[in-house]
């Protein structure tokens, strides 16, 4: 199974092992369709590197005869095709990972199909690759599919591209054909920002320039494909960037040790470094870098470590430890490229889970600004994104998250979207940049995040809706309740029907239609205030059940508390502090509730106050007692943890 040159295995296995234990690793992706000979190329790499076992070869020979496409020759494609169903169809339909090794490098190959409907798979394979091998059929040249693959490669942040111009045997190893394809490709690559391009003329079928230089391509004096893969430098931009350590797991073996475990996603770290815990922004410094093999003096991107901190600061899974002077930005709205992977189309406004680094939050996506036609690279208007479509969208998270633009760091700038109901991974996103609030109030109604505001105020917003006849004492009671709550530190606002009619509702009269509009406006104002995190005390006669129902429906379950200030008409009329009943009786006021307009008593108010027997102080006290119960305004055990 060893690589060709390994006489060393037989003569000095110890030396062999030492060399191999110091080799590096390269992850690359191969792009192209079955027709381009991609599977054949990978099969050839494995075969020529002597990585095919005798028993696998026997199976290959048998399969080649049975279902092969190469007559009596070995069909290398069969060496790498996997699942039975797709083998029968003759196409690969998923991402497969292959491995081979030489003395200099271990290779992980993501093998993905080239068909249009499988953008999802190519994006998945590309997400971990450092280099892409793009196959071009020498007979066809740079085609639509080549451009599509190159665009995806560029989008996913792969900076090194090898163009393997394959099937050169079918164009008589023509230099002209090869040079033409190279020129075509380079001009396209410049357009989409791929700078490192290497073109190699090959025949995967015959093995030309795959692992051994071909005598049939005298015009080409560059490396073979394998030589290039062995030698290419793929310095990771993350190495040079600032420290990013997403916390995966809090390591607490005992009370004396509190470590934070994670894989460094960017930069490096040393004991003593000043760091900032994001998104909170807490500053502290690194004490130790702990591993099972002893403490480290330095650790850098790619390493899995456990760090301890100098101060007892609050750190949990999902936080990111960053350099104090180059901390990661924090935001809750972004513009991103979104690749849709779900069978069902993306639903703007629907809540999804978003996982970035080690953090999972709730998120909603706006309508796409446009989708990108991967064949023409043109921007097209789109109401949503379907499977395998790519668009540019705005995304809003329910909590601030720490991130980097994807072009700066793939691990802290890439995210997945998860359907809350099926748990399927339905989208992959690449953060372009953060949106500032003022720039986008026009597009995003879900911007208004009630929970975040309520959290800042440290309370749960509610609307307490006082309904009852004029003169029942609603406003007086509501006012007393507000004073009591205010004194206890609640942020409150009293919405009074009479007061509202002096401004917002000055154009609204007292007909039934106007009363409905009056209550509708009042309820909408209450909703805005609840959205702002406020405890609202609303005092409105609101005589009709339907409108109180409508008001209630504007709020979430449990947010709307209906208080019926109940008083017999005779007593209210007897009090008549404002002289309104008398006016109504005299016919000077029409549509007066209780006189010539009905009052529909609530059927199931949250609280019923007998205003005929209770004093206003007693009534207010019973309202406050009700409100301060746990789960209404009182503290709910564990509610804090929901917000962490």
């Amino acid at each position, binding site marked *: 199974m060893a690589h060709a040159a390994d006489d060393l295995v037989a003569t000095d296995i110890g030396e062999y092992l030492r060399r191999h234990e110091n080799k590096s*690793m390269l992850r690359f992706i191969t792009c192209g369709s079955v027709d381009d000979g991609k599977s054949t190329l990978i099969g050839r790499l494995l075969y020529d590197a002597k990585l095919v076992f005798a028993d696998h070869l026997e199976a290959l020979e048998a399969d080649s005869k049975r279902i092969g496409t190469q007559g009596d020759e070995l069909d290398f494609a069969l060496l790498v095709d996997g699942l039975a169903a797709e083998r029968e169809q003759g196409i690969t339909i998923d991402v497969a990972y292959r491995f081979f090794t030489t003395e200099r490098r271990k290779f992980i190959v993501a093998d993905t199909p080239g068909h249009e409907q499988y953008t999802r798979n190519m994006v998945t394979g590309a997400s971990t690759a450092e280099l892409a091998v793009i196959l071009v059929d020498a007979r066809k040249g740079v085609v639509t599919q080549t451009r599509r693959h190159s665009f995806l490669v560029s989008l996913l942040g792969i900076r090194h591209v090898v163009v393997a111009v394959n099937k050169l045997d079918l164009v008589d190893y023509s230099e002209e054909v090869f040079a033409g394809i190279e020129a075509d490709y380079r001009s396209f690559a410049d357009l989409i920002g791929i700078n490192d391009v290497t073109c190699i003329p090959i025949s995967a079928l015959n093995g030309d320039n795959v692992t051994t230089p071909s005598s049939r391509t005298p015009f080409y004096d560059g490396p073979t494909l394998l030589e290039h893969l062995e030698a290419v430098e793929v310095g990771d931009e993350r190495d040079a960037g600032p420290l990013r350590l997403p916390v995966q797991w809090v390591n607490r073996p005992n009370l004396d040790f509190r470590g934070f475990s994670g894989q460094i996603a960017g930069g490096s770290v040393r004991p003593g470094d000043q760091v900032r815990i994001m998104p909170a922004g807490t500053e502290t410094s690194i004490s130790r870098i702990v591993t099972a*093999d002893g403490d480290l003096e330095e650790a850098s991107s790619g390493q899995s470590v456990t760090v301890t901190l100098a101060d007892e600061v609050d750190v949990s899974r999902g936080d990111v430890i960053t350099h104090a002077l180059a901390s990661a930005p924090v935001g809750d709205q972004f513009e991103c490229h979104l690749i849709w992977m779900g069978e069902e189309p993306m639903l703007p406004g629907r809540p999804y889970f978003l996982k970035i680094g080690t953090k999972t939050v709730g998120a909603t996506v706006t309508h796409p600004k446009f989708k990108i036609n991967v064949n023409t690279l043109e921007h097209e208007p789109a109401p949503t994104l379907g499977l395998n479509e790519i668009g540019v969208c705005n995304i809003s998270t329910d909590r601030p998250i720490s991130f980097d633009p994807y072009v700066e760091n793939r691990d802290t700038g890439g995210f997945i979207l998860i359907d809350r109901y099926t748990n399927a991974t339905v989208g992959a996103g690449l953060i372009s940049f953060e949106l500032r609030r003022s720039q986008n109030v026009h597009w995003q109604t879900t911007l208004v995040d009630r929970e975040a505001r309520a959290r800042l105020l440290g309370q749960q917003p509610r609307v307490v809706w006082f309904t009852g006849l004029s003169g029942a004492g609603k406003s007086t009671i509501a006012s007393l309740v507000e004073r009591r709550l205010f004194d206890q530190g609640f942020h409150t606002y009293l919405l009074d029907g009479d007061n509202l009619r002096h401004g917002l509702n000055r154009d609204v009269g007292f007909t039934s239609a106007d009363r409905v509009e009056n209550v509708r406006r009042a309820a909408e104002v209450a909703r805005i205030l609840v959205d702002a995190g406020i405890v609202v005390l609303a005092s409105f006669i609101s005589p009709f059940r339907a409108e109180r129902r409508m008001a209630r429906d504007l709020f979430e379950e449990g947010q709307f508390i209906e208080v019926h200030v109940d008083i017999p008409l005779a007593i209210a009329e007897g009090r008549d502090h404002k002289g309104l009943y008398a006016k109504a009786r005299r016919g000077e006021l029409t549509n007066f509730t209780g006189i010539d307009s009905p009052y529909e008593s609530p059927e199931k108010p949250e609280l019923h106050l007998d205003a005929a027997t209770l004093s206003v102080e007693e009534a207010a006290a019973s309202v406050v007692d009700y409100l301060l119960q746990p789960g209404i305004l009182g503290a709910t055990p564990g509610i804090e943890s929901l917000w962490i």
Partner: protein
Amino acid sequence: MSKLTHLQQLESDSIQIFREAVAESERPVMLYSVGKDSSVMLHLALKAFYPSPPPFPLLHVDTTWKFQAMYEFRDALVARHQLELLTYQNPDCIERGINPFDHGSAMHTDLWKTEGLKQALDLHGFDLAFGGARRDEEKSRAKERIFSIRSAQHRWDPKQQRPELWHLFNTRTRPGESVRVFPLSNWTELDVWQYIHLEEIPIVPLYLAAERPVVERDGTLIMVDDDRMPLAPGEVPELRSIRFRTLGCYPLTGAVESTAGTLEEIIQEMLLTTSSEREGRVIDHDASGSMEKKKQEGYF
């Protein structure tokens, strides 16, 4: 700054997988088969959570037919690291005396291992299980995810597997579903041996050549590990210098003749040999695609 070697990268990525799985599951468990891949997996788990012990028990789905040396190795290892070990033997198999001689390898493996594994996972209510499978073992495994969702019936549905991008794993499950996690997905057999060599990881001595009693059946060398092995009339075990490339139930595991008595010699022999690791396993020799069928039925 020096780039990591390939083994350092593989190690780091496996540790990341271990931590992610533990952080996002309620009741994880590690399937421990006593073989070299299990040894590497345990070694990585010890590193991933250091200085804490691995925050999950080991589960050995036993068939009662493993090599004696495997049981000894297992018990010594568990004692040394003070690990929590659960062993499970399918009670139906005990009752019916399922064995490879009377019932054949396929039924033996299906009932003891596949059924036994499902029963054990259900019994303890584990929602996540680490397994030592690698993508290079077999063609159908090349497409297996690192985090693989199984239905409440432990079935694997190739159409329902989730794309895995970057280092992001979607571990969410519905009630009854569970996750199989393969931290060694991107390791090859050679990587495993090199890592064992570099890290001096203990392995069952059966991997090293020694004189052992064997009989030859249909061209396969079977070690006579205890007196449950029925011998044909006139069949006499003979001592030969042999070793094993994989370990399982002793009546189903073919030995290779070898004098490789050190780790370096084993690796040397492996690199010069021409047959793949799983060749010695009876279960893979069915029709093409059989591993895939096994996997859909719940075999690891």
